[in-house]
């Protein structure tokens, strides 16, 4: 059953429920209490059927969505790893600079000893 078929089936239930409710109102106005009660029972049953359809859809959605969470988490992890690697490369460049500064200081110290 395609999504369109499911939507059409739901729409049919919805229309039938609305018709049953209007019939309940009309029969009540006409004083046909037994007929009205009957129509109300039908309207309620159709309303329950609609709830069952939605419940099934929600259950199916839930199962599929839970399977998707690891895939999205994996995408986030891959992106974070790339960020870390780029940051690491920048840090390496900074270390080269820091090493030069350290060397400068070491030479400075060495020169003082020699002097």
């Amino acid at each position, binding site marked *: 059953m395609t999504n369109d078929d499911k939507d059409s089936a739901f729409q049919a239930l919805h229309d039938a429920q609305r018709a049953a409710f209007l019939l309940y109102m009309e029969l009540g106005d006409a004083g046909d209490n037994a007929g009205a009660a009957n129509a109300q029972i039908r*309207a309620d049953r159709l309303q*329950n059927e609609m709830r069952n359809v939605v419940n099934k*859809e*929600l259950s199916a959605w839930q199962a*599929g969505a839970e399977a998707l969470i690891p895939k999205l988490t994996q995408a986030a992890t*891959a992106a974070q790893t790339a960020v870390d690697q780029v940051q690491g490369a920048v840090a390496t*460049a900074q270390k080269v600079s820091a090493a030069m500064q350290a060397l400068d200081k070491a030479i*400075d110290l060495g020169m003082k000893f020699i002097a």
Partner: protein
Amino acid sequence: MKTQRYKRYNKTPAIKTSLRHLDRGISLLSIGIAFVFFLAGCTAPDQKPFQQYSTAVKDAGDSLDKVLVEETNWSRDDYIGTVLKGSVALEKTALLDSKPGQFTVLFPANGQNQPTFYQLQDVRVTLLSLNQATGKYVNVLSTLAGKDLVNPDTFETIAKDTDNSMNSIAKKIGVQGAEQGIHIFSVGSAEVMRLLIEHRRRAALEKILVDSQPAIDEYCAKCVSLLSALDKSLSIDYNAKAQALETEFRKVRNDEGGKDKDLTGSNKARTIVEEHLQLNSDYLALVHSLKSAKEVYTKLPQGHRELLQSVRKQATGFEAIRDLSEEGKRLKTIYDELQKPSSKSPKGETTQG
């Protein structure tokens, strides 16, 4: 002339070797220049569309969650209404069955009779996890594309600091020409380093965008299908609320004199009509927000493709991302309107038929 010169050089093996080294040097220099030209194309990506995309995903996720919370409340009201009406038995739908030792409880009939609002609560937990994972992904993506990650200023500082240190060292050890300043590391070298990192960043962005496209497609498809389920669920709850109000109105009319009675003076009847109109406004706003959210989730996959195009430097007008941004703002406005206290139907005041 050239040939003669070469012939003369060829007579000496030492010159021959020097020429070979010179050739190799020229080749390496050419490769080096070509490499620098190749890297020179590696400019930082434009972060703005990434930020817009990230905001659109967050706004859509937040709005969908808010609609879900609202619908859960409606569904809960509906459940209570059906129990009070007697069309659903409390013991068949609410009497939980515990499973000692398994740390779980079941709704009657092995969970078959679980009221919709409970299911919506479960759905919300899953949706929050989905949104959290997607939100984290697009946020990190935005960071990866961001200027701050490979900041040219940082590299300029690195170059200057290294130059200063090198010059200081050269002066101390008495290197000739140190007084004029030796730019061994130099801004140029730092720039090559930056370009190398930039190249690595672009390659990573491209790979991640390609690899994650299926997950984003699936996420959006899931959200669209959830919106469809919510649309149906809302219509059921609206039906129940509206029909209860109409039944109540009919009772008031019958109590006050029948079908043809003028109810202008009836406060009870007026309150019911007001409630009905308010219910309609709320329902319309919720349906509009669902429709707007559907627009957003339908365009999110295309927006993700546009980010890839921009990283690959293919021409893109970012149409989907622009639309997403606009629709996101619209969605936020709709929900903000819905959240205003004046537009809320008073909870518990809806009369059940």
